[in-house]
């Protein structure tokens, strides 16, 4: 399962990288969204999957899945949410001010001589 | 007793699974948005409710009734139709074409008459 997940994560990364390399603002933002999904899955995968019951104290259960990575992922998810929201608004504000959503038209090297 | 409950559980779950297959088939095969909504909002809802009932019975036999299931079923029961309604209306208003095989478009007729009335009022 871990190997399957590693491959899935790799593919997600591939998609995300492709999106990030494209020209449109929105596609880039979608790319970062997919990256964060991949990262969260990766953290869980790396700690070993399905090693016991859900980490909620239950009578008679001794083996629990590692709860620590779950807590880390939760933190990461929330942070990713904040950043994504910010990024999204940044994207549309940039579009409003600059008037294009094409990264190639957002160079900013005019001042260099 | 356990035999009986197992039978019910199995029955509901299988029905649910069947209905979800129906949903998928409907979504694939039906020709336009309006017909596909039927598949989604009717059979899917019914399917999930059926599964939930099955599992509810399962947990009941395991050691206790869990109110979350009832709440969940109730929830889906009231939200699914509203969701379906909203979506259909939205797609109609946003200008999605009906399937050419459609027989009737009441809303359009309705609108037409309304517009006619409006133009008449303006004339007078």
């Amino acid at each position, binding site marked *: 399962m871990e190997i399957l997940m590693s491959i899935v994560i790799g593919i997600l990364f591939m998609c995300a990288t492709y999106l990030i390399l494209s020209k449109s603002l929105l596609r880039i933002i979608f790319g970062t969204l997919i990256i964060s999904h991949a990262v969260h899955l990766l953290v869980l995968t790396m700690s070993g999957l399905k090693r016991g019951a859900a980490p909620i104290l239950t009578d008679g259960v001794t083996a629990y899945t590692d709860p620590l990575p779950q807590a880390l992922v939760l933190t990461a*998810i929330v942070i990713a949410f904040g950043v994504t929201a910010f990024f999204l608004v940044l994207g549309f504000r940039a579009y409003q001010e600059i008037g294009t*959503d094409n990264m190639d038209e957002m160079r900013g090297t005019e001042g260099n001589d | 007793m356990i035999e009986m409950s197992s039978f019910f559980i199995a029955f509901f779950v299988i029905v649910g699974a069947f209905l979800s297959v129906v949903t998928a088939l409907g979504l694939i095969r039906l020709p336009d948005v309006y017909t596909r909504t039927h598949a989604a909002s009717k059979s899917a809802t019914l399917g999930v409710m059926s599964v939930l009932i099955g599992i509810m019975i399962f947990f009941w036999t395991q050691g206790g009734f869990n109110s979350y299931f009832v709440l969940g079923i109730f929830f889906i029961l009231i939200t699914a139709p509203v969701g379906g309604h909203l979506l259909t209306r939205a797609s109609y208003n946003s200008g999605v074409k009906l399937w050419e095989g459609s027989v009737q478009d009441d809303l359009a007729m309705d609108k037409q008459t309304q517009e006619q009335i409006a133009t008449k009022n303006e004339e007078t």
Partner: protein
Amino acid sequence: MSLLHLAILLPFLSAVLIPFLFKGFRNIHTGWFVLLVPLVLFIYFIQYLPLTSDGNTVTKTFEWIPSLGIDFTAHVDGLGLLFALLITGIGSLVVLYSIYYLAKEKEALHNFYVYLLMFMGAMLGVVLSDNLIVLYMFWEFTSISSFLLIGYWYDRERSRYGAQKSMLITVFGGLSMLGGIVLLYIMGGTFSIQELINMSESLITDPLFVPALLLILLGAFTKSAQFPFHIWLPDAMEAPTPVSAYLHSATMVKAGIYLVARMSPVFAESGLWLWLVAGFGIITLFWGSFNAVKQTDLKAILAYSTISQLGLIMSLLGLGAAALHYDQLDDNIYMIATIAAVFHLINHATFKGSLFMMVGIVDHETGTRDIRKLGGLVNLMPITFTIAIIGSFSMAGLPPFNGFLSKEMFLTGMLSVFELDLFNLSTWGVLFPVLAWIASVFTFVYSIKLVFKTFLGKPQFDKLPKKPHEAPIGMLISPIILVSLVIIFGFFPNLLSNSMIKPAVEAILPSLVDSGQTVDVNIYFWHGFTPELFMTIGIIAVGALLYATLAKWQGIYNRIPERFTLNGMYDAGLSLSEKGSLRLSNAYMTGFMRTYLVYIFSFFVAILLSTLLIKDGFAIDTTDLAPIEFYEVILAIILVASAVTVIFAKSRITSLIAVGAAGYTVALFFVLFRAPDLALTQLVIETVSVSLFLLCFYHFPRISRNIERIGFKLGNAVISVLVGLTITLISISSFSSRSFESISQYHIDNVYDLAAGGNMVNVILVDFRGFDTLFEIAVLAIAAMGIYAMIRYRAAGGKEE
């Protein structure tokens, strides 16, 4: 901190007061206050003369960074004191001269004198420091203060150019010297010159010895304007003339000479040292004198003459090192080379100082320094003429002035090369006297040209910007004092020999003194009919001939195109470095985000994959894997399919729906991986995010018009695949290399007893790792705040919404 340290720092300390004095006493020329400083110091240092002439030295230490071996150790010996006296003595004269040269009404005197005092202090520091790091510090200070002095008229383009050039070259030398110093420290474990001298025997065998030698010499050569680093010196003439007189006669450029003399005991045992110092010196001597002849600006002639004279002293120092290889002092004629070097150093300071001041007077009174406009000034400026003639005759090496004496000794030194069977000198060494003679001829020519073209010949006063007349007496005092010294030293050279030259030579060649030999300095006018005398006569004869036919052969100077001169190369190099950098930089700093990302991702892939390969990090271990169920495979396919859909989606809403589907699937995976809290959070956040996207779509363009080429897509695809592959490979390897139990068993065991909770994830979040959570909500809060500010506050429109 002793009085000696205070003496070194006095110029810096008094520099602080200058701006206030300038502002406070507008009626009095600030120079009068400044004059006190070098005068006091000169008197102070004179007191050390008896001490050093007896062969004693004084060392005073002030601890600065003792733990790094960096202490401000002041060391006064013959060599240091000689320089200190030159610095303060000539310094006094220059300040006096400047009082009449720079008008207090027009000039920014507070700046000028601050720079000058800083420079003076820095020079004193260089010559009196025993610690190499402190020496380096003052060394860089001389570069910087001369930068300021040269750029004193900062609104002139040429001044800025000259200032920058001198700083670049000298600081370059300084830095390489620092490298040499560090190497010496690594070899010897100390920054103290005296201690290094004591261990010179062991240093010479060290493999770092040669690099250290080269680096230190680089420092000395750049400072002393040795070929090919001499190019900064002519441009430094943009400074006010008093500055030129000071920097280029007695101080700044002599710092390099000082360094070579000072480090001789450490390095001179090496043949490389001898060859390099003498070789570069003699080439510089020739090149400087050769080029001086073609100049038409009076100061430029003097600049090249300075270069050539510095070469002369340098070559003498180099040959003097040979003295170390001969034990018998009686027939050690190489000692004479060192003596000549020290003697000429003093002589050069006197005659070059006076000549610079003379040129300053001409410039001040006529408004030009262009030799083609000048002529016939002798009747109007007789005193200046006298100064000029004494100075330049001394420079040309004519009797009875001091220049003649040292020139004779120089020639003796050069001729002695024939008797040297050291380091292959017998073969190429023949070039030394030949070049020396040729250079002396040119020296004669430009010296004569300097005087004759200015003061004799046809008067053409109509070309001059000002009506010329003799300078005020105040301006003449300093050069007169200097030319008097020229004459006095010429007639009574032995005034200096025991008081100054001998101690200095002893400091340069301490190992000879240690072995019981005494330095005997005796300078005479008349040595009999020696080869030197015939050479001098030859110089005068050929020189006079060349001067007479100057117009005929001057053309050869134009043969070298500007591009191939060293100056041209410097300019081209500098503009190339700027333009080239810009072109290079613009080539990769494209401003395209994608390009940067491509660089970054490519590097990411390349270095990680190669590390994985080199370090054999790849591992795959299938023994400890969780089982795979059929439906999980399908879910994985669904997840992948949704993600791929995002790539191919034509419209933004399709992308969003696909992203949503992927998000929901991820939540389902969380359920499969027994993480209910995660699933809950992921679901809500996914939904809220989707709503946010929908909310923002209103502000985005409906259709993306960014059509991408196939090549572009293909490139992206390759990089993407590689990135994905890298992540997968490392993931598999790290998972397969699990070596330890997780610490989380502690959390599982103690969650109820110690933290009173049942949901481990939540307890970790609020208790075990509550600190994380605290700052995580901080992140959220800042994000919200930022979004609010971003939307509400639009400075571009100049107002808030």
